[in-house]
């Protein structure tokens, strides 16, 4: 177990450096002038030069990178935004709960749809149910999140007036200056983004679960269970489900980790002030510290979720339980 943890930590450090160095390299390659953007439209070349010096943009890129690493390791800080001088930590702390609400709520939605549908299609392949779910899957895989989001927003939000069209409300009450707050408003405003997520991911998960359940049902030990006289219900619950959920856990962990790094399209459509939204803004203003900060957060999220997957896997499958 210790061995496993140590290896994990080394991997995490390695990944952190790879991800951040690549971010800096890309930033160095693209033709952007963050100092000019930060200084504003009416700035003189002298102003821009001053801003550039103040933001350390006149230093070589490797020096900027070392400064970033030093700040993070020495002071535990991701730095400040070029644009509004807010600390990146506080921005991420503000944005991450929005993205997390979207991603976890969406995951609950897509799992609660795709697990039963996937199992039913596996039990009755080529049935009406299976074919209908297949059509749904094709739409979900083919459609772009922007399109799904816009259609939902227009039809359900605007034409039918059932839900808000956009916006976000805090789950916890007591935020200063909030227009709306509390769990009910929170969920109400997130319904459409969740459904967008659900359509996107449920499509993949229905296929995945259907394939896994069908594969597990043809396993020898399922035949053994039937030969023992187990009822179909018992066979399904005790023998098929847990075994067929193993690959689903892996994919789910990776998807959650990735999505936490910013659900850019969905957040943009529904105007949710999450990490994806922040990332788009930071990109438009060439705000390197903000972009790097979100990359670091996303890397950590992926690493953490992979770790959670490994631990869960150990519970589900005794063969890989660390002894």
């Amino acid at each position, binding site marked *: 177990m210790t061995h496993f943890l140590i290896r994990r930590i080394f991997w995490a450090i390695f990944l952190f450096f790879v991800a951040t160095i690549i971010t800096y390299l890309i930033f160095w390659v693209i033709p952007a002038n963050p100092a000019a953007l930060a200084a504003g439209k009416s700035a003189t070349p002298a102003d821009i030069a001053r801003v550039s010096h103040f933001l350390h943009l006149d230093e070589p890129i490797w020096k900027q990178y070392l400064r970033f690493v030093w700040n993070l390791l020495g002071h535990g800080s991701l730095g400040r935004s070029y644009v509004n001088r807010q600390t990146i930590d506080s921005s991420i702390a503000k944005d991450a709960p929005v993205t997390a609400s979207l991603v976890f709520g969406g995951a609950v939605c897509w799992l609660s749809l795709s697990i039963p549908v996937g199992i039913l299609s596996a039990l009755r392949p080529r049935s009406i149910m299976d074919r209908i779910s297949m059509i749904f899957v094709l739409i979900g895989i083919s459609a772009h999140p922007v399109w799904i989001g816009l259609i939902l927003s227009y039809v359900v939000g605007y034409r039918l007036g059932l839900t808000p069209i956009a916006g976000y409300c805090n789950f916890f009450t007591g935020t200063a200056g909030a227009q709306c707050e509390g769990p009910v408003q929170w969920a109400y405003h997130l319904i459409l983004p969740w459904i967008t997520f659900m359509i996107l991911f449920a499509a993949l998960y229905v296929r995945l679960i259907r394939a896994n359940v069908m594969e597990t049902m043809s396993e*020898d030990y399922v035949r053994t269970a039937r030969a*023992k*006289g*187990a009822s179909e219900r018992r066979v399904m619950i005790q023998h098929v489900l847990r075994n067929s959920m193993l690959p689903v856990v892996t994919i789910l962990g990776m998807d959650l980790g990735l999505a936490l790094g910013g659900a850019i399209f969905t957040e943009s459509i529904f105007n949710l002030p999450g990490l994806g939204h922040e990332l788009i803004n930071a990109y438009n203003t060439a705000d390197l510290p903000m972009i790097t900060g979100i990359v670091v957060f996303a890397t950590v999220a992926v690493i953490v979720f992979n770790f959670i997957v490994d631990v869960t896997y150990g519970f589900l*499958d005794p063969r890989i339980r660390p002894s």
Partner: protein
Amino acid sequence: MPALEVKDLNTSFRTDDGIVQAVSGVSFSLDEGHTLGVVGESGSGKSVTFLTVMGLVDPRQAQVSGSVQLHGEQMLGASRARLQQIRGATIGMIFQDPMTSLNPVKTIGWQLEEAVLIHQDVTRKDARRQAIEILKEVEIPRADQRVDDYPHQFSGGMRQRVMIAMALINGPEILIADEPTTALDVTTQAQILRLMKRLQDQHKMAIVMITHDLGVVAELADDVLVMYGGKVVEEAKVDDLFAKPEMPYTWGLLGSLPRLNSAGERLDQIPGQPPSLLNPPSGCAFHPRCEYVMSRCRTEMPDLRSSAQGADHRFRCFLEDEERTRIWQGKRAALVSEDAA
């Protein structure tokens, strides 16, 4: 009354390429406490025959007809609930590959207890006691500790013992063993066969031993069915079969047995491949591979007929009796002289 009587059993599967006739017109009976050996190559229909008997073929794909009577009770067409009562209680079944036949995420204790709890109205504690008891009976060392282990913590031979324990835990009258030793190494095979023999004597149960190994049949069986292309091609008492096999396919099987002292020589083999059940050969299914094929064999399937030795030795072949006697004596002489050399 025989424990199990099967008459004119047919099983076919609908596939994308057409109908596969896996079992056609198979009949046999199994007496209480007896052992029936079922021999044939892969794809001869021996496993499907007994999966059909157990009601374990998928009804959405398989078409089944005929009669399967368990102590006179018709099992084909019996309700799902009735079949579930029979499976694991009256008839136990073990399978070829012990590595994949146990659920990898449940302890073997849990899986044994499950078998008990499905059929007996007892507490989990009592089921566990039974599980440990049966594990001791199949000679698993430290059974009271190993009961909490997972399948991957056991070797192949030990897992097959667990499978046998699971099939026997409710004291079935019939044990169907589908190639139980094929996936095991030779020394383990011998142990498992000895164990099965001992358990059969203790529990007074009938065994169906499905195998492609005539050595296993010789050791365990009372009666033998030889299957080819989904049909029974020869049936006999085990001693009669080995004394005077009547059918060219059975000769081939006997000739392809490895012998210790035929050093360095190639084993006899039956030329060609087992027949496709999707497009079976016309006439006798064995005719494309038969050394003694006649024009009649290509168009007609020979009926099962009784041998000159007795009515219970039956086979399918058009060769005349004298002809077959002559050929077999020649073959036997060759086998014996090889053994003597």
